[in-house]
C-alpha cells in the first residue's frame, strides 16, 4: 500500500503529474516567435508584431490578453468572456476578408492569439489622408475598401456571427490591399442563443457607430447593427471624420444604461428625426418617450452626400441612404449591399484596394515601438520564478501607464485606444 504521506500528497494535488507533462510539452511563444515590437494596447491587453522562427519567417500580430492580477501577483482568475468568444469564433471561421487566427498559445497564465499580420487599417488610411495628404480618399479606393468590408461581413453574417464592434480601427488592410475584419472580442453567434443578446452585454458597439435601435434601448437586435456601423465607416472614409460624433453619456453608479441623447441628436441632424411611418417599431422602443422630447430635424443626407466627392452620385447617395435606414428590417443586408448599383458604377472595386495608387498615397507602415516591448513578453524559456513574474507584472503596469500617456504610440488598430487626438470610446460590460 501507499504510505500515508505520498497518498496524502496525491490526494492534495492529483493533477501534479498532468501539469508537469503538459508544461514540458508546451510550445512557448519565445521559442516560436521573435518579438519585433509593440503595436497597440486596449482594455483586453496588448498587440505585438512578431516574426515566426519557422523558415518562412512570416510576420504576425500577437495579441496578448492582459493577465489577471491580484495586487502584483499574476494568478489564474478565469479566462474572460471576451477572450473565450474571440478564440471560439476564430477557430471556426476562415475567409479572405476576416483576419485569420494562426494559433493560440497558453503560457504563464497568459493567452496569446497569433493572427495574420495586416500592415494598415481604416483609421490609419483616414488619418493619412486627413493629416498628411490633406485630400480625399479616392472613390476607387473607398469603393474597394467598402466592397471587401461587406464581403467579409457577409461571411460572418452567413455564419450567424454579429461583429458588434465594427469601426475604422478594427478593420485592417494588408500590404496587398486586402481588407481584413478584425477583433471578434465582442462578436456573438446569434443562432439559437440561450439568452437574448442584450442579456450578455449591456452596451455594444462604440458609440459613434452604434445603431439607432441600440441607442433607443432595443432588447432585440440583429445583424443590421453591423450594417449601420458599415454606413458610418463608409461616411467616415468619404469625409475623413466620424459622421455622427456624439458624446457618450456615462453609465450611472448602478450601471444602468443612460439615454444617449447627444449621439441620437448627431444622427437626427443628418438623417432627420425618425417617425413611425419610416419605422413601425419605433414606438415600441424603450427610449421612445425620451426621444419624443428632442427637437425634430429634417434629413440632410442628400446634401451631405453631394458635398463628398466619392458619394456625390445618385447611386452613392442611395447606397448610404439604404445603409442608414432607421428600421433595421429595411436596412440593406450585407448581400444586398454588395449587389447595390453603386458598385457597378465606374470606378469599380478592385481586389487590391490600393490598385494603381502612387506609393505616397499608400499609408505608411504600421508604427512599431520598441521601448516597452521586451518587458511585456514572457521571459526566456528558463524557469521563471515568481519573483521575476512579479517584477514583470509591475513593469507591465508602468509600461501601460506610459503607453496611455504617450497616446500616439499606437496606430489604433486591433480595437485599441485611438490615435491622433480622437478618443475612441468603447464600453464593455458583463
Amino acid at each position, binding site marked *: 500500500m*501507499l504510505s500515508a504521506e505520498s497518498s496524502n500528497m496525491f490526494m492534495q494535488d492529483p493533477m501534479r503529474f498532468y501539469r508537469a507533462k*503538459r508544461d514540458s510539452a508546451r510550445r512557448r511563444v519565445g521559442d516560436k516567435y521573435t518579438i519585433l515590437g509593440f503595436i497597440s494596447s486596449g482594455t483586453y491587453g496588448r498587440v505585438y508584431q512578431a516574426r515566426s522562427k519557422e523558415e518562412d519567417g512570416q510576420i504576425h500580430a500577437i495579441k496578448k490578453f492582459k493577465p489577471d492580477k491580484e495586487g502584483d501577483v499574476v*494568478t489564474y482568475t478565469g479566462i474572460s468572456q471576451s477572450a*473565450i468568444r474571440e478564440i471560439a469564433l476564430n477557430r471556426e*471561421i476562415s475567409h479572405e476578408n476576416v483576419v485569420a487566427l494562426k494559433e493560440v498559445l*497558453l503560457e504563464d497564465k497568459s493567452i496569446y492569439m497569433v493572427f495574420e499580420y495586416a500592415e494598415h487599417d481604416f483609421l490609419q488610411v483616414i488619418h493619412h489622408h486627413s493629416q498628411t495628404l490633406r485630400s480625399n480618399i479616392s472613390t476607387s479606393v473607398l469603393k474597394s475598401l467598402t466592397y471587401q468590408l461587406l464581403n467579409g461581413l457577409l461571411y460572418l453574417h452567413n455564419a450567424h456571427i454579429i461583429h458588434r464592434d465594427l469601426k475604422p480601427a478594427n478593420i485592417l488592410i494588408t500590404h496587398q490591399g486586402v481588407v481584413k475584419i478584425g477583433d471578434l472580442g465582442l462578436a456573438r453567434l*446569434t443562432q439559437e*442563443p440561450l439568452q437574448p443578446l442584450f442579456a450578455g452585454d449591456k452596451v455594444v458597439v462604440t458609440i459613434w457607430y452604434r445603431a439607432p435601435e441600440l441607442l433607443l434601448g432595443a432588447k432585440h437586435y440583429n445583424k443590421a447593427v453591423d450594417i449601420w456601423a458599415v454606413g458610418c465607416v463608409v461616411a467616415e472614409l468619404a469625409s475623413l471624420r466620424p459622421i455622427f460624433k456624439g458624446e457618450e453619456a456615462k453609465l450611472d453608479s448602478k450601471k444602468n444604461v443612460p439615454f444617449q441623447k447627444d449621439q441620437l441628436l448627431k444622427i437626427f441632424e443628418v438623417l432627420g428625426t425618425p417617425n413611425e411611418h419610416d419605422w413601425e417599431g419605433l414606438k415600441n422602443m424603450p427610449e421612445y418617450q425620451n426621444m419624443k422630447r428632442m427637437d425634430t430635424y429634417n434629413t440632410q443626407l442628400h446634401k451631405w452626400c453631394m458635398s463628398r466627392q466619392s458619394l456625390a452620385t445618385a447611386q452613392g447617395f442611395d447606397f448610404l441612404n439604404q445603409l442608414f435606414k432607421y428600421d433595421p428590417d429595411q436596412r440593406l443586408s450585407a448581400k444586398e449591399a454588395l449587389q447595390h448599383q453603386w458598385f457597378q458604377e465606374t470606378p469599380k472595386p478592385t481586389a487590391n484596394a490600393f490598385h494603381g495608387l502612387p506609393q505616397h498615397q499608400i499609408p505608411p507602415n504600421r508604427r512599431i515601438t520598441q521601448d516597452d516591448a521586451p518587458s511585456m513578453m514572457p521571459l526566456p524559456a528558463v524557469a521563471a520564478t515568481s519573483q521575476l513574474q512579479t517584477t514583470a507584472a509591475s513593469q507591465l503596469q508602468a509600461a501601460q501607464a506610459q503607453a496611455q500617456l504617450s497616446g500616439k504610440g499606437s496606430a489604433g488598430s486591433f480595437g485599441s485606444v485611438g490615435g491622433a487626438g480622437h478618443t475612441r470610446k468603447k464600453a464593455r460590460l458583463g
Partner: protein
Amino acid sequence: MATDFWASSHYKRWNIDRATVKLARSQDLQYVDDPEYLDFLSIFFANLIGKLGKKLGLRQRVIATAIVFFRRFYVKNSYCETDPFVVIAACCYVAAKAEESPIHIKNVVTEARLIFSSEEIGVKTFPSDNHKLAEMEFYLVADLDCDLVVFHPYRTLMSLCGKEGQITIREAEAGEMGTGIDDGPRYWGTGEGKLELQEGAVQLAWFIINDTYRSDLCLLYPPHLIAIAALYLTVVLHATTHNQLHGPPSSQGSQSQTHSSKIAPRRSSRPTNSSLKRHTQQDIVTFLAGLNVNMSLIATIAQEIISMYTLWERYKEDPSDTSARNTFSASQFPSTSNTLPSAPVSGRAGMMRSGSVFSGGTATSSAGTPSTGEDLSGSQHRLGQLPQLVKPAVMTPLFLTQVLLRMREAKMVDMGMVVGGMRPMAYDKRLERAQAAG
C-alpha cells in the same frame, strides 16, 4: 463557418473513430480492476456534470457542451493521471462561457464542493481555491485545442420535427432552443418538410438525446445522425406514435413481440421497415428514408444507445433523474420487465418530468437488487486490504469513486512513487486478468 457543421472544428477535428477512443483508455485499462468499470465511470461522470450543471442553473445544451468537453479532454488524458472532479467543474465553467451564459467561478467552486463531498460521492478533496479551478480551465482550453463551438443533436431534432422556436417542451426544458432570432439552414439532406410528431414523442426523443451523452457517441458520430437515431428509437418506443404506425392498437402480447424483434441486435432496420407499412397521417418511414442519411449507420447508433441503457440499468444513483431510460427498462426489454418484479417506486414516478407518455416508468434496477447498497458500504471499509474491490451487482457513485482512487494509487505505485510498497512495481491489470483467465 460557425453554423456549417462540415466546416466546423467539431467535424474536422473532433469527430473521431472508435480506435482512437479505445486508445485513449489504454492506460486506464492497465490500472482498473475490471474494464467494465470504465464504462460505468463514463456514465457516472456524465451524470455528475448534469447534476452540477443543473445546480448552477445551466441549460441542457450547456450541460451537453460541458460533457463533450469532458470527453474530448479524456481523449488525450487518462482518468488515473488526472482528477476528473476538477476537470468536471472546469468543463461546466468553460461550457457556460462558450455557450454565452457565464457563471461566476466562485459559484462553480461552491456547488462542486457541495456535490462532490456529499455522502453519495464522498470526494472531499475538491480545492476551495478559485485559482485552482481557473488554472484547470487554462489547461482544459489548451487540451481542447481552443475548439469551443460544439454542435448538438437538439438542433436537428427541432429542425426535423419542431416548429422552430415555438416548440413547447413544457415541463422540462422549455426555452431550451433559445429565442430563435436566427434560424440556420439544415446542413444536410433536403431540408424539406417536418416530421409531425406528438409533443410527448418529441420530448422522449429529447430525453434520449440527453442520455446519449452518457456514452462516447458524441465523439463518434455527427450530431444529426444521433438525433435521427433518437427519433428512430422514439418512433419505436413511444406508445401512441408507435400505434399510429400500426393502425389500431393491437393486443398487448403482439406489441411486446414486435418490440423485441425490432430492438434485437443486427436486425434493426429490416423488420422495422416491413412492419411500418401501415400508417395513418404521415408516412414516418418515408420521411426518415427521405432524410438521405446512411440508415445502417443510424441502426448502429440506435444499437449503441440501447447498449448504453442496458449498462445503465446496473448503475444506481438518485431516483430523480429525468432520463428516458425508464421507458427503455419498463416497456422495451421484455426480459427485464418479466424477470424483475415490477415495483414502481412512487417517489420516482412522481418526480419524472416526462409526464404520462411514459407508461409505467419504474425503477427496475433498484427493484431488482435491493440489498447491494449495504453490501457495498460494508466492503468499502475493507478496501485498503482487499486485492480487488468486490464487484457489486449494481454500481453506485461511491463505489466508482473508490475504483477511481484505486486506479490512481495503482498508477502511482507503478510510477515508483512509493518505495517498498506491498505491490510489485510493475502493475498491469491486463496481465493479471490474462493470468486469471488462464
